[in-house]
Structure formats: C-alpha cells, structure tokens
C-alpha cells in the first residue's frame, strides 16, 4: 500500500514540476511579448512605420503581418528558452523534488 502511495506521490511531483515549467514559460512569454510589442509600437507609430508600410504595400504580401508572425514565434522561443533555463536552475537547487 505504501508503494502505491509513493508512486502516486511521485506522479504528483512530476505533475507539479511540469506545471511549474508551464507557468514560468507562460509568464516569460507574456513578458517577452510585451517587450517586443514596445518595439512594435515605436516602429509603427512613427515615420519608420510609415516607410515600412509603404514598402509592404508594394509587395504582393503583407510584410508587416509576416514579420509580426515571425516576432511572435521569436518571442515564444525566447520565452521557452528562458523558462527552461530557469527550470534547470530550479531543479539543480531543489533536487529533492525531482
């Protein structure tokens, strides 16, 4: 019976660990998104953004939308890497749960 309890507790720990990873990831993804959006605000509400807009208007695709998608992905990747790093540090320092 104690074996089952230990197993359950182990599963619970793994879930908690994974949840922590996801939470930290989401937090950093939001933060990185916000920082990148600041750059976008500066670029889009100025003459730089207007020049980019004209360039985009001359292309057969919406370059602003494409770069928006790319920046979106970059922010997600950065957030993931950051979260992974933090989790590794967390795991090394608090190895008792891992």
């Amino acid at each position, binding site marked *: 019976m104690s074996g089952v309890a230990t197993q359950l507790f182990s599963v619970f720990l793994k879930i908690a660990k994974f949840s922590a990873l996801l939470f930290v*990831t*989401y937090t950093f993804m*939001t933060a990185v998104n916000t920082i990148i959006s600041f750059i976008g605000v500066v670029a889009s509400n100025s003459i730089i953004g207007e020049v980019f*807009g004209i360039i985009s208007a*001359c292309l057969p695709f919406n370059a602003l939308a494409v770069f928006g998608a790319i920046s979106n992905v970059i922010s997600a*990747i950065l957030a993931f890497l950051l979260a992974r790093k933090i989790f590794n540090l967390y795991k090394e320092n608090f190895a008792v749960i891992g």
Partner: protein
Amino acid sequence: MKGIKKCFGLFLVLATMLGLSLSVSFGVNALRHDYDTLKVVSDDYFYSSSSAYTLNSLYQTEYPQSNALSQPIPVRMYNRLNTVNPTLNPNYWNYRTWQNGECKYSNDSYRQSNVRSVNTTNTVSWFNNWDYMVTDYGYPPTSGTTYNCNPVPGDWYSWDSIYMYGVSKEWGVGRYSTLDDVFNPKDSFGNYFTNLKYMYSFSLPLVYNEATVGKLTPGREIQFSFRLQSAGTFLSSDIEGNLSQFDINHLGVSFRLYAIDEDNSQYSSNGYFSSVINNSGVTPSGANWFSDCSMTKNQIQPDQELITELIFNCKFTSPTTLSHVHPNISFYYHDPNESSTRTRLYPIWYNESPVRFGASYIVTDNDWTPGASASIPPSGADLESAPGYASTIGYDDDGESNGGDLYNQLTSMFSFNFTNPFGAYFASFRDNSSCVNIPILADMIHAEQTTYCPWFDSATRDIVTPILSTVAVMLCFGFLVRWLKSTNSDFSPEASKGGD
C-alpha cells in the same frame, strides 16, 4: 530513437504551452468581464426566445453597479431607462414597468423578482445596436398593446459607456454565429470590419407597442445628446472647421446619423438617410431629419489640438412621409479618397486609444404619447444635475480621481493584456489589403492623400501573406528543434557527412 523521444517531448511541451496559454487567456478574459464574456452573456440573452435569463439579472450578476463606474464596461448593456424622478436611487437601474395595470417606476427589487416571468406575448422590446430586436420578458403589460409605458417627457434613455481597446476590438463588435464572424466581424449591414477599424452604432431604444417597437411614429421629435470621450489617450485632432479635417490621423471623418425605414425595406440597399455633422454644425445631406445638431469640444487647452470630449446635441424628427422610422446613430470613418458614387464607409476610432462613448437622450413633449400614467417630472429639468445623470451615462461624479485611476489602468506598462499569444500569426489571415496610413510622410511631402494602398489586389495578398507567415513560422520552429536536439558534433563538418 533518442532524437525522436526528444522531439516528442518538445512537441508535448510546445503543445501544452499553446493549450495552457489559450486556456489561461480565455479564463482571464472571463474573469475580467471583457468582451468575450459579454459576447456569451448577451448572445444567450439576445437570441434565445425562452431563456430564463434576462439582461437585468445577468447584468446585475456580472456587473454590479458598484463596479459599473469604476471599470470599463463594454458595449451592448446600454438599454437602461432612467428617469429624473428624485425619489429613485440613482445607483440602481430604474425602470418604468407594469404594476397592477399601471405604469410605475420600479425599483431594483421589483425587477429582480419579476424578471423571470416569461411571457412571450406581453413584452417590452427595443432594438439593439445591431438592429436585432431585444425583448425583455420582465415587464408584461396587462392591457395588450396599449401605449401606457411609452416615453413621457422627462424620461431618460441612456446607454452605458463604451470603452474600446484597439488591441482586442475585433471581439467587441459584431455578432458571432460562425467562425467566419469571429475572424471577420461584420457590421449590421453585413460589411466586414477591417482590422482595427470600427463602427459605433446604436439605436434609440424607443418603446412603443409591439407592432412598432423601437420605431418612431411619423412627425415625432426627440432630442438626444451623446458624447465621445477619450479615456487614457487623448484624441489628437486637427480641426479646421472643415469636415475632411477632423480626424486623429488627418483623414476625413464624418459623423453620420441615419435612420432606417424598415417598412419600405430600405435597410441594406440604400436604406439610410443621413445628415452629416461637421465641426461647425450640421451639413444637410439627403433627408434632413436630424436638425439643430451642435457639437461642443472640450480641450485640455484652447490652443492645443488635444481633445478630451466631443458633445453632440441633436434633434431628430421623424418624417411624415414614412411610417415608423427607426432612428439609428452611427459613427463612421469616411475616407474622402473613395469614389462618391458608392461611398466607402470606414468606422472611426481605429486607433488604439480607448474611446469612451456615452449616449443619452431625453424625451421631449412632442414625443409623448397620451395615455401614460406615470408621473411626469417637471419640464425643463437641468440635464447635468438630474439625479442619476452621472451613473446613467457612465460619467464619474468624481472624474478627477477616477479618471486618473482609469488612465493608470489603461496606460500602465504592467497591465498585461491577456489575449491570444499567437494573435500576431493569426492576424496574417485577416485583412491584408487595407491601405496604409502615412500622415507624417504626407505632411512632409504635402500630399493630399494620407493613405497608400497596396499595389497588388487583395486576393493575391490574402493568399500569399498567410503562406509566407506559415513558412516563416515553420522555419523558425524548425531551427529551434534542430538546435535543441543537436549535439556539438551536429554543426561540425563531420556531422554533415553522415547520419545520426
């Protein structure tokens, strides 16, 4: 094999990230009573014929009055009827309802106890701002289709303030019945909204009998006023007394009021008659049903082009040539570069500054239908000092401090907006053919046109853009996967010669 395991693990992490992000964002939106919540609530109410819920009960549950003034309230919940009866608590919603065959002012407790009395034959209805009839089941008249609870002089019809946020405006307007509506919201005419360009529209919630509910009978006149108020970011304007000069981006804006003649089905074809209000007053165009419109602007300083509030006072007279007109007020962004033969109308306020919109109108003597048994407040009541005025149209009594709080909420760099984290990618599937605003460049080169439109047609751009976006996203994630599963030897010359 090890690489496959790693890839699978990475896939699990990424998929869970996506799921968690979406669920968190939607969950937070629900908690914040944002547009998404309103969408569910109001759709449940507006389009169900036998629902036990009503607008009042839902609104009371979701939006207690104590919060109504302190937090942004989105659209749709505007159909309160307040009166200038001083005995009523302005902090509650006061309706004139049916009690024992007489039209009396109801208080909140009466409404709460009566809202579930569903009777589909005895209803009070009005039109919402998408021209769908809204029926309130809480107030069954006892004498059929008599006119007893009609507006009487001194009645206030009011709407709550409308706050619009540019980043999530696409969720704020429109009716969502299909997935297409979600991605491409339409206005009440079926026209697609383009991204970040919106129309504000509302109807005067006139309550008559069931046959002509929401419509104004011929020859009647109502006075109404409405305000556009900037919250947070001020409207930067360049008003020169000319219609085409009023816009935050130096583009033409017209405030278009239109009325719909539903009996003649002039609804979606050429079904609006308009009077365009410019900055100096009214500019008649078409049937001049709106008259005596004046606009007052409040500025921070008279010599600065920063406008905090626009106040309109108008009269609307229903023409005698048509029966039952449905007054509707819309705000359009009008692009003067478009052909005048088929004027393309853009909604205004497409910038990302939150714009607060309050509207109200007061029933005048000419609008009164004899037979109402409600007490008539004294005429000539001061609108500004009328009880419930502040709560009615959403203006704060203590605007100095509350406005500061609101400003802080809206402009703080730590007020995260929980939206779809992959919204930038999904945006590539939306409007890719809109013209680019170039106010600064146009000003520099003294160009008349302040927009620059794409060279290629919308079909081409709408196809190529999502393809390129998807390819770019796949490439980025591909490099990420390659990097994560790699060892040092993968990037060495030897690694390129052989496999794993």
